[in-house]
């Protein structure tokens, strides 16, 4: 099967004005302007197969939005080659648009003053969706996203969670092969987040829609995307399954020792002290071969140990570790 999206050495360079500091600098820049080139995306390569769910992850300014804009045909790459459904997205923007759906978490595509249904009707005409297919899809999405109570309500009267569900339905009405979602759960409450995640996971698994997600919400990643593409400074840092990342970095288990009273400073060869709260001490087990028994054996008796907790690293910890040690880890991965 050929990839649905393939990027090969894709780069995007922006020309940025070099700003001079102070009032004098502002005056000087009126007459003499210096520009520098900013590489927002720098030689990124990956391939995404049909039906995959991928999180495109990176800190602010890492170049993830720029990459998504290039894939959706909004921006033209400065270097490399990019193919979406076998086409160059920017050169074939309108054809490409018929086969993709895009949800911008913080930019609504619904008509603010009109009932949700009116935005759907307009999209039916823009995407030229046959009436029967439109009716089927609308019925399916309304049921799945529990939108029936507010389908005829003006968008301005919807809660954020309802609006986000309506946005996702809007992006799926024309049966796109690829669904792009930019921070789809941002600002939602726990219940709404859960509903959105379950739905997206279902759309990916049942309908085979390829999902590309950009999110900072790590639960989104765990529940929707088995695969992660991590970027920073425009460069690809990691591309692989979440479980591979976790397996590589997962040795940093957290051991919490709770004592009856503060035993004073404790140094162990088998674990590194991460936080000292007096009677409660947090250690990190850097080495996967070290067991709980090894640590307790080293600790010995006589400290008044009351309770022991061993926590597996959560995804947040895994990703934090990755970014803290990125050059070393990227080489190892």
């Amino acid at each position: 099967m050929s990839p649905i999206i393939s990027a090969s050495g894709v780069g995007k360079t922006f020309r940025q004005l070099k700003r001079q500091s102070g009032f004098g600098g502002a005056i000087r820049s009126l007459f003499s302007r210096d520009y520098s080139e900013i590489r927002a995306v720098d030689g990124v390569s990956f391939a995404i197969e049909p039906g995959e769910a991928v999180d495109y992850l990176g800190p602010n300014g890492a170049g993830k939005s720029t990459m998504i804009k290039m894939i959706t045909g909004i921006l033209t790459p400065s270097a490399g080659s990019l193919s979406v459904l076998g086409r160059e997205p920017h050169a074939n923007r309108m054809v490409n648009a018929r086969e993709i759906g895009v949800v911008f978490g913080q930019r609504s595509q619904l008509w603010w003053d009109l009932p949700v249904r009116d935005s759907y009707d307009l999209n039916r005409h823009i995407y030229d969706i046959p009436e029967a297919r439109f009716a089927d899809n609308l019925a399916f999405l309304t049921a799945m996203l529990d939108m029936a109570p507010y389908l005829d309500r003006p968008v301005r009267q919807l809660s954020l969670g309802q609006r986000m569900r309506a946005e996702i339905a809007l992006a799926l009405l024309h049966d796109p092969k690829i669904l792009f979602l930019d921070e789809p759960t941002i600002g939602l409450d726990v219940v709404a987040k859960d509903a959105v995640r379950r739905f997206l996971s279902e759309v990916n698994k049942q309908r085979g829609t390829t999902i590309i997600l950009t999110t900072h919400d790590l639960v989104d990643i765990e529940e929707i995307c088995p695969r992660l593409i991590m970027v920073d400074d425009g460069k690809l840092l990691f591309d692989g399954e979440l479980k591979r990342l976790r397996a590589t970095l997962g040795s940093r288990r957290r051991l919490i020792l709770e004592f009856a009273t503060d035993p004073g400073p404790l140094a162990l060869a088998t674990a590194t002290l991460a936080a000292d709260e007096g009677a409660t001490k947090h250690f990190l087990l850097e080495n996967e071969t070290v067991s709980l028994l090894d640590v307790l054996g080293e600790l010995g008796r006589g400290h008044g140990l009351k309770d022991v907790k061993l926590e597996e690293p959560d995804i947040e910890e895994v990703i934090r570790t990755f970014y803290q040690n990125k050059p070393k880890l990227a080489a190892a991965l």
Partner: protein
Amino acid sequence: MSSVLRVIPHLIGIHIRTHMEYRGALFIGWIAQAIGYAGIYASIALLLARFENLGGWTWPQMALLLAFHLLAYALGASLSFVQFRDMEEKVRLGTFDAILVKPIGPWTFLAFSGLNIEYGGHIALAIGLMVWSVSNLGIDWSPGLVLYFLAAIVSAAMLTAALMTMIGATALIWVRSRHLFSIFFGFWELARYPLNIFPLPLQIMMITFAPLGFLAFIPTAVALGKPVPILGDWAGPASLAIGPLFVLLAIVHWRYCLRNYQGAGG
């Protein structure tokens, strides 16, 4: 092309429905605009009552000029002004990106989904003033002149929409373009008066670099059989050609800006 034409009525319809959600604001807006323009025209009429003519133009002739100016502007601006004035916000906030992921030309989407029915007040006032002035001027309306007059209105409306598109499109590259609208409206104000009252450099500017002389003065002067500075006998054909010519220029400029669009970060 046919699918685009099928979508246009729906784009216009959804915009009208949006406006009808606030019917009171819409009607008051129409009345306010009509009163605003009527006030400006009344002051011009008072001036003419004092001096009898302006550059050789009597009040009924001036009324035709003002009506043409308002009608052509309203027709062109309804498709372009608010839509492209707000272009820099669309670029800055990223809402233009949301248009680019739809399978429709962004100009078509912007122009028709924002078709400004608030210009209804302008159009009603312009037609009323035009009917009054024509009935007071005794123009010999041959079929050719009627056709010319109607085509000249369309051409001037096209010129307005083209200039506004070009200004708005600039925001795709510069992010900011609203200041260019200030320049446009500077010349637009001057376009309400006979060109011959201005010094020669300004007359040249108003038919070349900022061709708003074609918005009302030149076609009205041709219809009234008045002399047109610089252009002479070429004024009639030029006033018909200017709209389509600027539409072509606007298409080239729009496409260039779209190709070089970089967004505004985020």
